[in-house]
């Protein structure tokens, strides 16, 4: 079961339709069952029985999750692969001790993969959809796997399958989510 975490300011918001549902569609189409959960409902002990966890994005103006980031502390000890998308990447960054800085990108953007990555593939440049106001200064020791002219576009934990992407793969880059699902089933 892939768990999709809704990071929007309230459960069942219009953001859920925009940022969680498209990811759910890709996961489902790839043949994987999924369950949605709002971040406020994530138990302190973490999400049990997950094959994978995706922290989805939220609206440009929605930073409520950063004020309640302690509620996601259990991500640090997740036993399964974790993927953070946009706000989800920001959440992972904060949970693991990284920092955020203001940096906006909106629209299709060139992404340069800087080293081979299980989700992004070999080094190359591709275009992806961006909607963010902040950028990540990755936690110490994390691998930066893709960049744009503005900021870090993807990182991963040095030892564990914990990934973050700043772009929105659910728009024109489904393969990133599909690869993550495949990885979840292998581990």
């Amino acid at each position, binding site marked *: 079961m892939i768990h999709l975490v809704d990071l929007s300011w309230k459960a*069942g918001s219009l953001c859920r*339709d925009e940022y969680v*549902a498209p990811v759910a569609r890709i996961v489902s189409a790839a043949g994987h069952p999924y369950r949605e959960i709002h971040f406020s409902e994530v138990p302190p002990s973490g999400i049990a029985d997950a094959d994978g966890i995706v922290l989805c994005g939220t609206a440009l*103006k929605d930073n409520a999750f950063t004020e309640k980031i302690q509620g996601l502390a259990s991500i640090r000890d997740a036993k399964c692969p974790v993927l953070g998308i946009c706000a989800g990447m920001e959440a992972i960054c904060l949970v693991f001790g990284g920092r955020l800085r203001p940096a906006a990108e909106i629209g299709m953007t060139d992404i340069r993969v800087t080293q081979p990555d299980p989700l992004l593939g070999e080094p190359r440049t591709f275009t992806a959809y961006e909607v963010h106001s902040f950028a990540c200064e990755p936690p110490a020791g994390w691998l930066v796997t893709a960049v744009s002219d503005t900021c870090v576009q993807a990182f991963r934990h040095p030892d564990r399958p914990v990934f973050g992407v700043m772009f929105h793969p659910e728009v024109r880059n489904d393969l990133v989510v599909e690869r993550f699902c495949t990885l979840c089933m292998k581990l």
Partner: protein
Amino acid sequence: MTAEYTGMKLGVLCSGGKDSWFACGLAQKKEEVACLISVRSKNDASYMFHTPNVHLVPLQAKAAGIPLVTVETEGIEEAELADLSRAIRLAVKQFGIEGIVTGALMSVYQATRVQRICRDLGLWCFNPLWYTDPNAYMERLIGSGFSLIITGVFSAPFTKEWLGRAIDREALADLRRYVKTDRITLTGEGGEYETLVLDAPFFRQRIIIRESETEYANYRGVLRISRAELVPK
């Protein structure tokens, strides 16, 4: 006494077609739709705002009982965005909206530009139909009390007979067939067709078309509606 919280005040960008009205219905269920915002383009080729019967949005707004903010634009690419920004600022001033709702399905072009305007104005931006499943969406649309017709066709294999045709189950089956045979998008997202909503579950009255004429040649045509009115539901 504390006023009851009725949700975030939102303005819905409305072209008169199915996507903006369905998005409006979704927004009404979760927040407060304070007004509609309509941009009337004089340019038939406008990337952002071209729809054949945008002049009927005021009638739709009346049917729904939702205030409307309208501005006109010459429809010059990019410059028309300043007119959209003006319309949104007007809606902020008149209705105190905190965010915008669009019916964007997959158009990165449109979504990007509205997102940027909202950011510049400090507003929320919601696209509740973003990358929604086309089949499920069309089923929900016709299964939930929306009445809509096709008012513009812009690609093969649409014949003249499609102009004014209701999108019902039979039409949806034909559209699905065209997806396979002619590679159209089911929702018309590729610009293959345009729609006009005549009734919605939250409309207090429905729209009847009294006078119209068609212009059609080589798989391109529009239904120009010259007279329409509201009738009880």
